[in-house]
């Protein structure tokens, strides 16, 4: 079994023990509860609202129409009545347009997805986006403009605390493989590779049983973060290097998260739209769980369902601790890309007192993209975006390894994230100058 590895990366405490052994539990829909469904749960243009106030909707009914190429459909997660079309709190943008549904008592039945002859259309109809967190519309990824020879399934789940993919891999092993098989057949891809971090031997064993029946390659991955980064995964499994600024497609690969594959299977085989997903709720909550939750459920209901807070919460993070977003409000709804809800008390939080960069070079050593974060940080502070562009800030995958390892607690990754927009402008201007 080949394994090539990549440079850099860190080894944070994984803290997965609280939930890794807990089977996925279904969080029931509560009559009268409000579900806030954002119209933008994917990168790209927000969907167009199809529902009107006071309209009765059924779970699975289309309420948001994909608007444009990189956009995704949105379905009613529950049956009930639309009570408002209003802004909802959003962890990144502050607020986002959404549709609020009050759940009815009867939740039997889900409106099936329109299965189309073209498999990509079925995926589009089901509203599937990348469930690993990047939320790129899956149908777009599944319509490669180039020949793809390898489908790579990402089962690394390298973010600390999160166990939702791990549980899916154990409980839905064959469905995931079948989903991958559907993709493989539809796109005529020869190789299927499934990469799983070595700290999940049970998942490796579960997939191992199907290797000969479905003819794929199973690769145990080194346990380190960000092993699940697309480019890192491709390097580790195939020893191919995706050129800077390009997509995996460039080297003939598409990467899908295991949860996404499952969603594809459920859409294609069971006609089920994406209206729920598994989320790991852990940290300072009374009963940490892996929960199957309807999209739109407010974070506070989810935490309540897990027995409430343990002690005094200080920070609530949506996603993993390395790349997730700190929430300012517990009214933020569960979205398609939400893989975790983590609660931290003051005593769980690291000392964040910043001091000057001591040029220790630790950030340089751990950057999986071969960047020099300490130097880039100086440019961020001085708003020198030209220089930032020249030091390849656009190649930063925002993994947070540099910030994680910085003893001076510099806000490295955060600075790069926020500077990218300005740098993008400069690069576009340069491009225009070159071509004009």
């Amino acid at each position, binding site marked *: 079994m080949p394994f090539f590895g990549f*440079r850099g990366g860190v080894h*944070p405490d994984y803290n997965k023990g609280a939930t890794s052994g807990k089977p996925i539990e279904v969080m029931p829909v509560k009559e009268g509860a409000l579900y806030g469904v954002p119209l933008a749960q994917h990168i790209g243009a927000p969907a167009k609202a199809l529902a009107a106030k006071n309209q009765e909707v059924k779970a699975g009914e289309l309420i948001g129409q994909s608007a444009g190429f990189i956009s995704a459909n949105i379905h009613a997660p529950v049956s009930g009545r639309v009570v408002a079309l209003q802004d909802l709190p959003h962890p990144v943008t502050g607020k986002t347009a959404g549709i609020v549904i009050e759940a009815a008592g009867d939740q039997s039945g889900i409106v099936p997805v329109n299965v189309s002859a073209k498999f990509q259309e079925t995926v589009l109809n089901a509203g599937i986006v990348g469930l690993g967190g990047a939320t790129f519309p899956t149908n777009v990824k599944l319509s490669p403009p180039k020949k793809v020879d390898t489908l790579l399934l990402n089962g690394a789940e390298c973010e*600390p605390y999160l166990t939702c993919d791990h549980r899916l891999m154990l409980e839905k092993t064959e469905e995931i493989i079948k989903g991958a098989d559907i993709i493989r057949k539809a796109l005529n891809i020869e190789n299927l590779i499934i990469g799983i971090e070595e700290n999940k031997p049970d998942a490796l064993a579960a997939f191992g049983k199907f290797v000969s029946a479905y003819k794929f390659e199973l690769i145990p991955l080194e346990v380190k973060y960000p092993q699940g980064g697309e*480019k890192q995964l491709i390097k580790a499994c195939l020893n191919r*290097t*995706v*050129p*800077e*600024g390009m997509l995996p497609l460039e080297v003939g690969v598409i990467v899908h998260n295991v949860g996404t594959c499952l969603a594809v299977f459920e859409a294609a085989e069971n006609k089920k739209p994406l209206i729920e997903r598994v989320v790991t709720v852990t940290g300072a909550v009374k009963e940490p769980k892996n929960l199957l939750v309807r999209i739109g459920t407010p974070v506070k209901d989810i935490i309540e369902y897990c027995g409430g807070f343990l002690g005094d*919460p*200080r*920070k*609530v*993070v949506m*996603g993993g*601790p*390395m*790349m*997730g*977003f*700190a*929430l*300012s*409000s*517990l009214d933020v709804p569960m979205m398609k890309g939400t893989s975790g809800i*983590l609660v931290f008390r003051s005593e769980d*939080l*690291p*000392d*964040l*007192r910043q*001091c*000057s*960069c*001591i*040029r*220790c*070079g630790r950030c*340089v050593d751990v950057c*999986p*993209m*071969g*960047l*020099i974060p*300490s*130097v880039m940080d100086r440019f961020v502070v001085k708003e020198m975006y030209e220089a930032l562009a020249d*030091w*390849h800030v656009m*190649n930063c995958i925002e993994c*947070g390894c540099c*910030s*994680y*390892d*910085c*003893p*001076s*607690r510099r806000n490295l*990754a*955060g600075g790069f*994230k926020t500077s990218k927009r300005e740098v993008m402008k400069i690069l576009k201007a340069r491009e225009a100058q070159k071509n004009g």
Partner: protein
Amino acid sequence: MADNKFLVSFSPHTRDPLTTDKVMMLVVLALLPSILVSVYVYGFYAVKTYALAVIFCLGLEALFLKMRRLPVTVRDNSALVTAILLAMNMPPSPPWWLVLAGSFVAIVISKQVFGGLGQNPFNPALVGRVFLLIAWPAEMTSWIEASTFKSGFMFDAVSTATPLGQVKSEIISSGHIVSTGIADVADLFLGTVSGCLGGDSALAVLIGGLFLIWKRIIKWHIPFTYLATVFLLTGLYWLISPEKTLNPVQHLLAGGLMLGAFFMATDYVTCPMTVKGQVLFGFGCGLLTVVIRLFGGYPEGVAFSILIMNAVTPLIDNYMRPASFGEVKS
């Protein structure tokens, strides 16, 4: 529950437990073997010198931060490291005003004036040493015999010469080494020859240096390339004209080379950050040290060499940026 009680900050939300003050403390810990050896060898003089340097350096750092109306950050322990290294780079029993002058130059002139922690282009302790060496050459080379502890502990110091110094003056006066039995390798290794306060025992420095490498505080690249370069170049010269210099092993162990290679050349702030840059830096230090020791006017070349390479560090960092992941060379 009020929403505003939640802390909102950028990811990542978890951090490696190592902070800057702990990094500095580990360096202090790594210097402990050398400190102990120097106290054993020089007794009260060593204790006094360390104490003065620590008081002066920490005090000046706090004072100047206050004057610049900045938060007093002596708790980051960087001034403590500078103080210990400065003391180690002085003769064992300097007068108090020499320590004060050195501390002033190190902390104020070469660190705070440039903006404080992380901003100084040159290693502060070395700037202090070189300044003193130039301004007070006599005081800076008044060595005492490395056996005070055994012969009465306190006030009966016997003045003597360092091995490198003696060799240098003999070569200058007669063209070759006169005395025999200078600097037994075992003595150099254990530290029972006279010299600066802290660089005496190569063994003690080595223990600390390896500890830092093991703790991943420093990487091996700079010390290794530095020492290897000195060893190979002095070895070459020694093979050609053995009467004109010490053998390469003696060169490795004598003077401040070990201390410089493990603790001063590796100073984060003033050395390059990439592995490639560090190898070049180590080689440069080695080459300059050999040139000064063999052909220069000073018997010892470590401090000068590292400072000169410090000046080159920004260039190295700028021009030796490694290719980023998937970078297409245009």
